[in-house]
């Protein structure tokens, strides 16, 4: 192959890799709403109870560059909001949990509502604004639901 063709191929490789990186970065930390199952602390081997308002379940491994930063962020968010608990699950010695929750990257965070139902899922390091907005939506819905079901329960 002559050098000019080779340089052309190098540029193609560079462009393809850049596109790959841009796609990856755009998907990082995106909050996806899901209608998931209700899970309990035992399901994720958590020694601490879930939060009455919401729970942030973070999956990490001991070899994960972004996990410590995400842990600090979610800890801080949980601390500021009453009833919200952050649980960090180390998958390093629990491949069964990694498979059960289909974790493909670390950190992966599940956002549970007050009943323990999985309402959202975040792959990669999330932003504080996205987590806060999702928690706002989840805790608001919960309050609204309790408010609307309250009159109905009177005729029971």
């Amino acid at each position, binding site marked *: *192959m*002559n*050098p000019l*063709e*080779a*340089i052309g*191929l*190098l540029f193609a*490789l*560079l462009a393809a*890799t*850049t596109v*790959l*990186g*841009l796609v*990856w*970065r755009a998907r990082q930390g995106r909050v996806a709403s899901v209608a998931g199952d209700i899970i309990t602390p035992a399901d994720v081997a958590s020694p601490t109870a879930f939060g009455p308002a919401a729970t942030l379940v973070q999956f990490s*491994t*001991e*070899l*994960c*560059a*972004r996990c*410590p*930063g995400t*842990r600090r962020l979610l800890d801080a968010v949980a601390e500021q909001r009453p009833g919200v608990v952050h649980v*960090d699950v*180390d*998958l*390093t*010695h*629990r*491949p069964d949990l*990694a*498979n059960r929750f289909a*974790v*493909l*990257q*670390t950190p992966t965070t599940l956002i549970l509502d007050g009943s323990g139902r999985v309402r959202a899922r975040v792959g990669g390091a999330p932003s504080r604004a996205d987590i806060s907005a999702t928690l706002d939506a989840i805790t608001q819905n919960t309050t609204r639901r309790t408010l609307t079901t309250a009159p109905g329960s009177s005729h029971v």
Partner: protein
Amino acid sequence: MSKPPRARLDPRGPRFGASLTAVLLLVVVFLSLTGASAAALTLLAAITALFAWGALAGAGRHPYGVLFKKFVRPHLAPPTELEDAAPPTFAQGVGLAVTLVGLILGLAGVPGAVGIAAAAAFVAAFLNAVFDYCLGCQIYLLLVRFGVLNRGRRTVGNV
């Protein structure tokens, strides 16, 4: 295995090293495409040796890390936070595995092996350098899921 205090790094160090590695790997791809097989093989051998250095001595003691500390870091603001050295060290091991396979197949005379291995390693090094993507972290999780790294259940204290 007890938990020794882990080495911590300026996270920009490994990314600086990855950018140097990416450039060198691109040169290997160019050499193998233009038919300079011997030169491509020699340069890939040197890159493989550097990966081995990083994987065995730790990402903090990599020659590029020394270059970074001496010539680059003095011109930068202090790091906002330090990072565990384990993920970039593991990444060096992944790079070593890929380039070593390319090197062995290249020495065995498999056509295209050197160029393809260098291109694969380039993708990982470039994504690491430019986008802060951690391939090692991803592969580590896959190894956990396939049970390769499951050394029995034990409780890991909260860090």
